[in-house]
């Protein structure tokens, strides 16, 4: 059965069809206000099931998954691209990929959120590399201090997202600054190990160790937090 043959007419949700404000800032504010939806606990099994349904061409499942992931992914994309329009394009490309490749998702290898994050991040990196915006972004890292925010500035409309964000930020505070910086440049800057080493004028082996140790510390902190 193909996606085209299983289109259901009841997919469109009321919050999907609201008209958008004319300015980007206005749109962002408007969206933030409209995020007062009922809390939904993150449930990897539920999300994995949604992906499975998407693989079968279920547009409603696609809408539900979008609702669960899109705020975080859009925020991440915006942080990486530093441009609302481009972040939206990245998000669209990411969800197009999810729609097309849902069948390739392997729950034994990663959680749905991690899978979606890696997809959108890769799309953002493709654009960053294509448009050579890394310099500007990295300058931003060095001049403005950090990609990671010290506190959650959002209205935290999804409690699960807010809690997870707080947990990760707390975990990051326990990581040495140089490890945190290497992780920032890798995740949001889209830089490879070699590029980070070059940018920081630090041996490649040191950068590898920083990223590895940073991820291990983060993993441990998250495990403890969970």
């Amino acid at each position, binding site marked *: 059965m193909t996606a085209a043959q299983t289109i259901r007419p009841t997919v469109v949700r009321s919050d999907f069809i609201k008209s958008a404000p004319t300015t980007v800032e206005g749109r962002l504010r408007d969206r933030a206000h409209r995020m007062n939806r009922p809390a939904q606990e993150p449930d990897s099994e539920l999300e994995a099931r949604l992906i499975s349904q998407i693989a079968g061409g279920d547009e409603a499942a696609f809408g539900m998954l979008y609702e669960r992931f899109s705020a975080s992914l859009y925020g991440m994309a915006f942080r990486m691209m530093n441009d609302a329009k481009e972040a939206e394009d990245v998000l669209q490309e990411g*969800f197009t990929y999810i729609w097309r490749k849902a069948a390739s998702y392997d729950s034994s290898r990663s959680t749905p959120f991690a899978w979606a994050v*890696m997809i959108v991040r890769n799309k953002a990196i493709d654009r960053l590399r294509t448009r050579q915006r890394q310099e500007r972004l990295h300058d931003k890292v060095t001049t403005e201090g950090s990609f990671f925010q010290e506190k959650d500035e959002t209205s*935290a409309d999804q409690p699960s997202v807010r809690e997870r964000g707080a947990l990760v930020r707390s975990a990051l505070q326990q990581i040495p600054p140089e490890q945190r910086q290497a992780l920032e440049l890798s995740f949001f800057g889209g830089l490879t190990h070699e590029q980070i080493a070059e940018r920081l004028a630090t041996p490649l082996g040191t950068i590898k160790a920083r990223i590895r140790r940073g991820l291990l510390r983060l993993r441990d902190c998250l495990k403890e937090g969970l």
Partner: protein
Amino acid sequence: MIDESKQDLLVQYLLGELDSTTADKVSAEIAVDGELRDFAHEMEEAFASLAYTATPIAPPPELPQRVLRMERRAGQDSRPAPRLRMIWLAIPWALAACLAIACAVLGVEWASTQKSLISLREKAGETSKELGLLQEKNAQSESKLAQTQEALTQSEKELALLRERNVLAELKITTLKAQIAAYKGATAVVIWDRDKGSGVLQLDKLSPAGPGKDYQLWVIDPKKPQPVSAGVFAVPNEGLIRTSFHPAVPVESVDAFAISIEKAGGAPKPQGQIILVGR
């Protein structure tokens, strides 16, 4: 226990930094090694969790519908109607056939062009060779012309010399000597041009002939029975006199010149006294 270098490799694999060959090897190892798989899973989760540190932003609400609309359109575009499908299927073959025909035509054209090109090159070579020969001949001709002109110039010079010599050879200079003591102080010189049949008479210190008398010059031609008159001339004083003359009749050769004193106006043949003679 996974060593650190392996852990680094796994992290780079998860971040998509490995080349395809190495990535395939790592992927194969993960597929068969549970410990590696678990570690990769944990690292990916930790890495992906960084996304939570970004400020969540309300996404464009219409984006899922936009994605689905585009996917429907792409699906329709990729599935042509059955009738059209045959056309679509035929298009690649038609294109291939057109390409083959075009290749064949181009091949023939190319071969023909090559042949023409070779022929033209051969002709150009021959023409070039002929041009070289002609240029060589032209150079030789120019050299010969120069030599000829030089020879001509030389000949002209020689001819001029010869003519000059000839002119001199044609001239006869004769000094006339007094036959009478009274005219011992007088001098007379005749320059005779055989070619022109005329001459110049120069007199000096010759006293006037006297009333009713004139001096008359004679040309003695051995082939003529009588001396030929070359004219009369008056001598007003004993100064230098120069006058040209022409014999009354053409003479073939000159043996001598003579001056006589004749009655005024001269005589057809010498009648008076011969005073000066020169051979």
